[in-house]
């Protein structure tokens, strides 16, 4: 474009295509503020009537009210989220109940199997029965009753509503305690009525402690069968005793150790049968037990690895 066509060309702004963004970035203040200020400077203060004042005040109150309630409404949790949460909570409760029922059935069946096993074996070979009984104590396959030590760990109370993971009982604490108890000569251990075996894992998922994949809730009751007083003195000597003292003094975690005359430890979940053989010299059992799995096994079922 040249000036030959009449109207003089305005200097082309190089970033004309971005005028909108420029406007936004360079003129963030309402231009009306400046306009009104200029007008006031020229004509003096505007006359303000009482009606005008009242209107302004009312409008301001309304706007403030609307903004505050809008902000509050946005901060409130959405009902849909709450509903979903309730459904999931219900499902968790239902499934947990179902698992408990199945576990109970499992235990009953295991008891029946053990009873049948005992009767069948007793008729033929008594040393095998004794060995099986001893092995099932070690492997946690049978429930036990006896004197022992009960140690209860409970989370420290929150200070000022702040959840501090250090003041919670952690999987490491339970691991150290359980290992310490084994080292002190405990014959059998259960945590919150979950019997520990050679393959039991104590670990954490999120903030929950799992024993054999079963989530536990505090307080954590660790039952160990053995000579109560003896266990207690030996536990104090190993590093676990030191650890318990640290938990109590530094993190205010509740540690309660008491000797009990009679503790009842449940059987562990039944181990899988991986390998079974009829030992040499034992006549094959006919009749009643022939249909099932080879129950007359010399070695108790053990799960390996893990």
């Amino acid at each position, binding site marked *: 474009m040249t000036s030959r066509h009449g109207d003089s060309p305005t200097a082309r702004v190089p970033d004309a295509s971005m005028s909108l963004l420029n406007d*936004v*970035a*360079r003129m*963030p*203040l*309402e231009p*009306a*503020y*400046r306009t*009104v*200020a200029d007008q*006031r400077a020229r004509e003096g203060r505007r006359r303000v009537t009482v009606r005008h*004042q009242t209107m*302004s*005040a*009312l*409008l*301001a*109150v*309304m*706007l*403030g*009210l*609307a*903004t*505050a*309630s*809008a*902000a*509050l*409404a*946005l901060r409130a949790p959405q009902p849909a989220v709450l509903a979903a949460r309730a459904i999931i909570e219900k499902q968790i409760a239902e499934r947990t109940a179902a698992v408990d029922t199945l576990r109970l059935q499992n235990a009953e069946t295991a008891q029946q199997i053990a009873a049948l096993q005992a009767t069948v074996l007793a008729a033929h070979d008594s040393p095998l029965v004794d060995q099986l009984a001893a092995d099932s104590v070690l492997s946690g396959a049978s429930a036990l009753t006896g004197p022992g030590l009960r140690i209860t760990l409970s989370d420290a109370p929150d200070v000022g509503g702040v959840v501090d993971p250090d003041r919670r009982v952690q999987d490491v604490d339970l691991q150290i305690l359980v290992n310490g108890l084994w080292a002190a000569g405990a014959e059998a251990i259960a945590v919150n009525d979950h019997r520990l075996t050679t393959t039991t894992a104590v670990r954490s998922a999120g903030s929950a402690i799992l024993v054999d994949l079963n989530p536990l809730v505090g307080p954590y009751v660790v039952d160990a069968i053995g000579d109560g007083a003896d266990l207690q003195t030996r536990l104090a000597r190993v590093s676990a005793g030191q650890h318990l003292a640290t938990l109590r003094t530094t993190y205010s975690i509740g540690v309660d150790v008491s000797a009990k005359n009679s503790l009842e430890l449940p059987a562990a979940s039944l181990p899988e049968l991986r390998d079974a053989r009829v030992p040499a010299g034992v006549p094959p059992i006919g009749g009643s037990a022939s249909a099932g799995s080879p129950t007359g096994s010399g070695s108790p079922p053990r799960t390996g690895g893990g």
Partner: protein
Amino acid sequence: MIAVLGLVIGVVAGLVFEPTVPVSLQPYLPIAVVAALDALFGGLRALLDGIFDDRVFLVSFLSNVVVAALIVFLGDQLGVGSQLSTGVVVVLGIRIFSNAAAIRRHLFKA
């Protein structure tokens, strides 16, 4: 100043009485609150510039909120609600940022 006073009274009343917002208005709340913030920052900057005016403040506040809600409504009707909301938030966000920077320069001279 009567506008600021009224606004404060309104906010306190809102916090105390916690009125419920009609469900039909819920989708417009986020943008409306951002628009209100923009108006607030604009007003604060004007105050520091010495050109604050009750009427301009209230009108800009009201029009900001209404226009923002209208844009969301229009976007929802046309099927571009979320994109339009993003655009509005970007523009208002830039304005809030520049105003906040100007306020900072006023207060700290830096």
